């Protein structure tokens, strides 16, 4: 592979970081592992850049490597820490790969939908994702049970998902 092509692959790795991260997130149980594995995947993609055939689907190629790396990581964790078996993991990987093809449209719609969230819900989202607080610390700070906070966040994400799908169907530009 020429230097130009290698440079191109590096650019593609950068361009697909969000997708790769979300893809890995769909396979790993522990959120804290995601960024570490992503770094390893980046390194493998970089080292295997010469194996990429220009003109073929970069996302499919990267996904294949990411899936292999993530599954390998899960197997190393040991049976007791595994949540899903290989069949389900491959099923999740297939669904994720398909859905992530449209990640940028989803992201734009998410921007729009976040701005529509009522303030209390937005505040909860901010505590979890902007401030990076754990469910437990949010629970303590607002005086609600852990399960209740977790379910509230689930419902907010579901509402956002519905909003995103509606937005994508409408095809309107987010405000």
């Amino acid at each position, binding site marked *: 592979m020429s230097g130009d092509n290698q440079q191109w692959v590096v650019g593609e790795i950068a361009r697909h970081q969000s997708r790769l991260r979300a893809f890995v997130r*769909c396979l790993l149980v522990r959120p804290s592992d995601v960024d570490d594995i992503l770094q390893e995947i980046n390194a493998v993609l970089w080292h295997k850049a010469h194996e990429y055939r220009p003109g073929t689907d970069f996302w499919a190629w990267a996904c294949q490597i990411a899936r292999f790396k993530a599954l390998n990581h899960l197997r190393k964790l040991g049976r007791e820490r595994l949540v899903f078996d290989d069949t389900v993991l491959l099923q999740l990987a297939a669904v994720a790969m398909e859905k992530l093809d449209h990640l940028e449209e989803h992201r734009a719609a998410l921007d729009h939908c976040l701005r529509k969230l009522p303030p209390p819900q937005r505040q909860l989202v901010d505590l979890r994702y902007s401030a990076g607080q754990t469910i437990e610390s949010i629970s303590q700070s607002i005086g609600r049970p852990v399960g209740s906070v*977790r379910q509230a966040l689930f419902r907010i994400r579901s509402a956002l*998902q519905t909003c995103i799908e509606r937005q994508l169907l409408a095809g309107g530009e987010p405000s």
Partner: protein
Amino acid sequence: MNSSPPPTDRLHQWIAELIDGQLTPADGAELNRLLQADPQSARQVVDQLILDSLLSEELGTESLTALVDLAGQSPAGEFCSGESNSGESPAGAWSRSRRGIGRVFSTRRAWHVAGALAVVAVIGLAFAMGRWERSSLASSSEIIVRAAIDAHAAPVERVYVVQTERSAAGVAGFKPPRDVRVTTQGDRFFVEMNRGERSWHWGLDPDGSIWLTLGARRAIVINRDEWGPALHHISSLYTLNVETLLKDLCKNCSLEYKEGTQGTHFITATADRRWSGRRLRQATIEVDRETKAVRRLEIQRDIPILGASTVTFTLVDSRAPDESKYRPQGHLVAPYRLLNRDTRLDLRRELLANWFGPLAERWIKTPEAKSP
């Protein structure tokens, strides 16, 4: 009797626990069985996990930009805490948390602000070290740095690429791709942050207004007389009036001058051990002997929990300015809207808060009531 699919509430609970990494092995086994039997549930799991990832990325700190590490604790930290002391009284846990959010400066769209602040903090540091605490400076360092200030005031546009490395997450031989560029010219600047298919810009235009793009077709413009305290900080940093803003940083560093080998001078600033809560371990400034431009700046920091990080600003281009890029129009696609002072104040503030976090609404100050 209990062989029917679990109620939806149960599935939702499992997914919620899965997302937080709190699913018990027994519930995990149940969920695994359900996903094997019901592909629709698998789609629901994937939807939630993708959304979780997007929200973490959109709103939170994340590994792709360690720049926030730098900005979060030094100028941006001061900048944000200054904001929270601006007279509005906190009310309840929510507002306390929201101020916390501002302090860590972690919203995704604040990256370009954070990145910009980081760059300017470092550039400012370099210049401030030449201007602050004169008596404590080696005279050669002062001359060089002051010459650099003059060099940066010339009608030349300089472009710096910003790179960040972390010891903890680093993979040997591989640098995670990022693309952050700061273009400066005298008392103007614009910052470009590219990430994947998206990019953001903000800057200070020749009329003294700060602008921030909101996507490809809108920008908020804030005139100088509308700036809240935070924007004054930003502006001061970029126009190199750094003495007051960075004096704390500079008076806590010892400076050392070295002759470089390739047409450069080196100045190394090392944080004093007594500096409690110190924000950097060491900064190295490389100044071109001929042009007196800052060629390279390197900041080394020890970040609690995250380990060491190094942020490097490298001069990659000096060129004739492209004037259009110092205005928001140069980064927007027609038809576009500029939301300036003709736009309702509350709308601009709401947009700022939505895009840059809760504190951003105070970037535009409240107009003083006119006396009758």
